[in-house]
C-alpha cells in the first residue's frame, strides 16, 4: 500500500492554483463582449422574422449610468420597405436600467418570389420564374435610432428556411445527442451502478472482475466493464420461446416496454435554447427566447409540444401493454399473474401521478415542460412551491418503474414476474427499459420540481451570473466539492489515484476561476456556449443524483405486500393528491392578481 503524501498533493495543487491566478491575471482585464461605451442595448441583438411570425418585440435598455434620450427611429437598409414598426414610437428619455418596448412586423407578401433577379437589368427575354405561394426571398434591413449623437442599429432579417433545416435536422441532432450521449450510457451505467451501489451500501465488494488488457496494462475500472460483458452475455444466450407462446405478441412485448420509455424523453427539456450563430457572444434572455422559437436557434428539447405532459401520460400508458402482453403471450400462469399485477399497479399509480401533476400545473399554468421550467425560474423551484406534490409524484413515479419497493409485478421472491419466460436480449430489453424509466423519472422530476437546467437561486441568467459574487460562490463551492471528493478518492485506493487527480485538477481550475472572479469581477457576461454547457451539465447532474437516490431507495426500503401497495395508492396517494389540488387551487385563486372577486 502506498503511503499517503498529503504535503506533496497539497503543494502541487496550490501550485496549480497559484500558477493559474498569475497566468490569468497576466491576461489582464477580460474583454466584455458588450462594448463598454454602448450604453443602449437592444434585446435581442438582432431580430429574425419567419413568414409565420407575427409581431416581434424589441426591448431597448439603458445599461449606462446616466439618462439618455432616444429618438429618431427609422428602418433603413436594402429591404426597408418590408419592415415597419407596428406601433408609433415617440422619442423619450431612458433612465439607467429603464426599458423601452417596441414592436416590429414584416409584410411577408412584399417579399414573395426569388431574390436578386427581379432588380437586375433584363438583358434577354426570360420567362419570369414561377412564384409559388410559399416562396419567399430573404430580406435584411436594420432599425436605427439615435441617442446622444450616436446612431445605433439593430439588424432585422427575414428568412424562409425549409422545414428540414429548421425542424428536422435540429430534432434529429437532439435525438441523437440525447439518446446516444445521455440516455443509453446512463441506463447502461445504471445496470452496473445498481449492483455496485447496493454492494457499497451493504458493505460488500460488488462486481469488479471484468477486465481488459491493453498492451500489458490491465484495466478493471471498478467493474465498469461488466456493462459490456453483460451485453455480450445477453446477446449470446439462447433466445428461448415457449412452445405454446403466442409468438408475435411474445416478440412485440419487449418492444412495447422499451420504445415508450425512450419516446417520452422527447418532451424533456435538457437546456434552455441553443443559438447556432451566437455561440461565443453574450446573449440576453430575449435572444435566447428568439432562438427557442426556432429563429436562428433551437430549443434544447426534442419536441416542444403544448400538450407535453399529456403526451407523457398517453405514451407511458402504452408501456403497460408491454408488460401485460409479455405475461399473457408467455403461456405461463406465473407470468400472467405478474402482468395482471403490473396492469393493476400501473393503473392505480397513474391516477395518482396525474392528479399530483395537476397541482403543479395550477402553479405553473402550463402543460409544456419548457414553459414549466421557465415558470420555475421566474418564481421558485417546484419543490419549494409544491413540496407535497413532489413527494407524492416521486413516490408514484417510482411505483411506475415497477422496481422495489414497488416490484409487485416482478415479485422476485414469489412469482418471478411477467418476463419470467424471457431470456437473452429479449429479457435485456425489459431490463434496459426499466432502467431507462428510472432515468426518465429522474428527468421528469428534475423538470417539474427541481428547476430543470437552472442553477439554484437563479444565480445564472441567460447572459451570465447575476452578480460576480454569485459567480465566485458557484465556482468556489463547486471547486471545493470537487477537490474534497478528489482528495477522498485519491486516498481511497491506489487504483483511483488517476480519477482523484483529475477531479482535483478540475476542482483547482474552478477555484482558480473563483479567485479570478474575485479579483476582476468576471462572470457576469459569459459566452452563450458556456451558459448552455453549464445548463446542460447542471441538468445532467440533477438527473444523475436523482437516479442515485432512486437506487438508494430501491436498496433500502423493504418491498410492499400486494394489499399494502394498493392501499397506499388508493387510500394514501390519491386522497392526498386531491387535497393538494384543492389547497393549491385555493391559494392560486386567492393570490392571483387578477382574481375576480365574485368567482371566475
Amino acid at each position, binding site marked *: 500500500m502506498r503511503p499517503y503524501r498529503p504535503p506533496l498533493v497539497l503543494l502541487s495543487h496550490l501550485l496549480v492554483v497559484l500558477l493559474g491566478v498569475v497566468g490569468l491575471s497576466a491576461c489582464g482585464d477580460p474583454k466584455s463582449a458588450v462594448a463598454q461605451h454602448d450604453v443602449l442595448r437592444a434585446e435581442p441583438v438582432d431580430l429574425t422574422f419567419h413568414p409565420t411570425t407575427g409581431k416581434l418585440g424589441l426591448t431597448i435598455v439603458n445599461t449606462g449610468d446616466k439618462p439618455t434620450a432616444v429618438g429618431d427611429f427609422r428602418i433603413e437598409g436594402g429591404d426597408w420597405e418590408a419592415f415597419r414598426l407596428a406601433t408609433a414610437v415617440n422619442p423619450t428619455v431612458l433612465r439607467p436600467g429603464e426599458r423601452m418596448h417596441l414592436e416590429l412586423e414584416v409584410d411577408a407578401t412584399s417579399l414573395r418570389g426569388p431574390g436578386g433577379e427581379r432588380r437586375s437589368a433584363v438583358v434577354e427575354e426570360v420567362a419570369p420564374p414561377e412564384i409559388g405561394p410559399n416562396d419567399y426571398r430573404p430580406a435584411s434591413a436594420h432599425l436605427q435610432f439615435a441617442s446622444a449623437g450616436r446612431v445605433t442599429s439593430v439588424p432585422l432579417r427575414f428568412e424562409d428556411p425549409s422545414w428540414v433545416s429548421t425542424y428536422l435536422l435540429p430534432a434529429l441532432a437532439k435525438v441523437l445527442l440525447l439518446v446516444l450521449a445521455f440516455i443509453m450510457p446512463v441506463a447502461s451505467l445504471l445496470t452496473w451502478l445498481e449492483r455496485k451501489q447496493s454492494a*457499497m451500501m451493504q458493505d460488500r465488494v460488488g462486481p469488479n472482475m471484468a477486465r481488459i488488457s491493453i498492451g500489458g496494462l490491465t484495466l478493471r475500472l471498478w467493474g465498469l466493464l461488466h456493462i459490456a460483458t453483460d451485453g455480450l452475455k445477453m446477446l449470446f444466450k439462447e433466445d428461448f420461446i415457449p412452445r405454446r407462446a403466442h409468438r408475435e405478441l411474445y416478440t412485440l412485448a419487449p418492444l412495447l416496454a422499451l420504445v415508450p420509455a425512450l419516446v417520452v424523453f422527447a418532451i424533456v427539456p435538457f437546456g434552455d435554447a441553443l443559438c447556432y450563430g451566437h455561440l461565443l457572444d453574450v446573449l440576453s434572455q430575449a435572444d435566447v427566447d428568439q432562438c427557442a422559437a426556432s429563429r436562428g436557434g433551437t430549443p434544447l428539447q426534442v419536441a416542444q409540444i403544448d400538450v407535453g405532459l399529456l403526451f407523457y401520460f398517453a405514451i407511458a400508458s402504452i408501456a403497460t401493454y408491454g408488460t401485460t402482453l409479455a405475461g399473457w403471450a408467455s403461456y405461463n400462469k406465473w407470468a400472467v399473474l405478474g402482468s395482471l399485477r403490473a396492469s393493476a399497479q400501473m393503473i392505480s399509480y397513474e391516477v395518482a401521478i396525474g392528479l399530483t401533476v395537476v397541482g403543479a400545473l395550477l402553479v405553473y399554468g402550463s402543460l409544456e415542460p419548457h414553459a414549466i421550467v421557465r415558470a420555475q425560474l421566474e418564481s421558485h423551484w417546484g419543490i419549494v412551491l409544491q413540496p407535497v406534490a413532489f413527494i407524492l409524484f416521486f413516490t408514484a413515479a417510482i411505483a411506475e418503474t415497477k422496481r422495489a419497493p414497488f416490484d409487485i409485478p416482478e415479485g422476485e421472491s414469489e412469482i418471478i414476474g411477467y418476463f419470467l419466460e424471457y431470456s437473452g436480449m429479449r429479457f435485456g430489453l425489459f431490463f434496459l427499459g426499466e432502467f431507462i424509466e428510472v432515468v426518465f423519472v429522474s428527468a421528469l422530476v428534475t423538470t417539474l420540481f427541481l428547476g430543470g437546467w437552472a442553477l439554484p437561486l437563479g444565480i445564472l441568467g441567460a447572459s451570465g451570473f447575476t452578480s460576480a459574487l454569485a459567480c465566485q460562490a458557484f465556482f468556489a463551492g463547486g471547486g471545493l466539492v470537487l477537490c474534497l471528493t478528489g482528495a477522498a478518492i485519491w486516498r481511497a485506493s491506489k487504483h483511483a489515484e488517476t480519477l482523484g487527480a483529475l477531479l482535483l485538477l478540475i476542482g483547482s481550475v474552478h477555484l482558480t476561476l473563483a479567485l479570478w472572479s474575485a479579483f476582476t469581477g468576471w462572470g457576469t457576461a459569459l459566452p452563450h456556449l458556456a451558459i448552455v454547457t453549464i445548463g446542460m451539465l447542471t441538468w445532467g447532474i440533477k438527473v444523475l443524483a436523482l437516479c442515485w437516490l432512486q437506487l438508494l431507495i430501491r*436498496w433500502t426500503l423493504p418491498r410492499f405486500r400486494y394489499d399494502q401497495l394498493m392501499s397506499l395508492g388508493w387510500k394514501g396517494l390519491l386522497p392526498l393528491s386531491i387535497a393538494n389540488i384543492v389547497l393549491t387551487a385555493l391559494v392560486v385563486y386567492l393570490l392571483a392578481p387578477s382574481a375576480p372577486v365574485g368567482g371566475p
Partner: protein
Amino acid sequence: MTIGVKKVSLHRTARDQVFLPAILEGLLTSARHFFKNTMTKGMGDVDTIRYGEPDVDIKTYYPDRFRGVHRLMYRDDGSVRCVACMCCSTVCPAKCIYIVAEDRQDNAEKGPASFVIDELKCVVCGLCVEACPCDAIRMDTKQHMTPTERREDAVLGKVELMSRGGPSVATQGGLGPEFRAVAPQADPRFGQ
C-alpha cells in the same frame, strides 16, 4: 384456571404512520455506508477477503499456522535436514509419506535416499511436522496443493519438496545433553 392471553398492542404514533421520518432515517443509514465505503481508504467497512483475485497476495490473508503444501528444509551445506528417522511416516494417519533410508557419505548420520509424499492422500493434519525431531519437514508454505492433470504429478519427491525449502535456524540433531547448559529457560519441563 383460565388461559392467559398476552395481548400485544401495536402502538403506532403519528410519526410511525407517516413513514417518512423512518424512511429518511433508513436512507441516511444506507447513504452513510455508501459514502464511507467509497470515499475512505481501504473501502471502509467492507471486510470481504479478496481471496483469489488476480492482483491480491493470498498469503497476507492466511494465518501463520495455516497448513499448506509440505516442504523439506535443508542444512547450511544445502543437503536435506531429514535423518530418515521415520517418525513422520509412522505418525502419519493417512500413511502418505514414504521414506527410504540410506547412509550419508559425509558423517555417521542417516539420510533419506527417497522422500515421497502423496499429496492426494494427505489429510493436512500437520502431525508429521510435530513429530519431526530435527525441523526437516514443515507445512508453512501458505500454498494449497495445486490441482494436477495426472495423479502422479501430485506425488511429490525429495527434489520438489526441497525446492520450497529453506535453511532452518534449529541446530541439526538437537543440542542433546548440552541443551540444559545452553538454554535452560527454553523448555519449562526441565525446571531451574
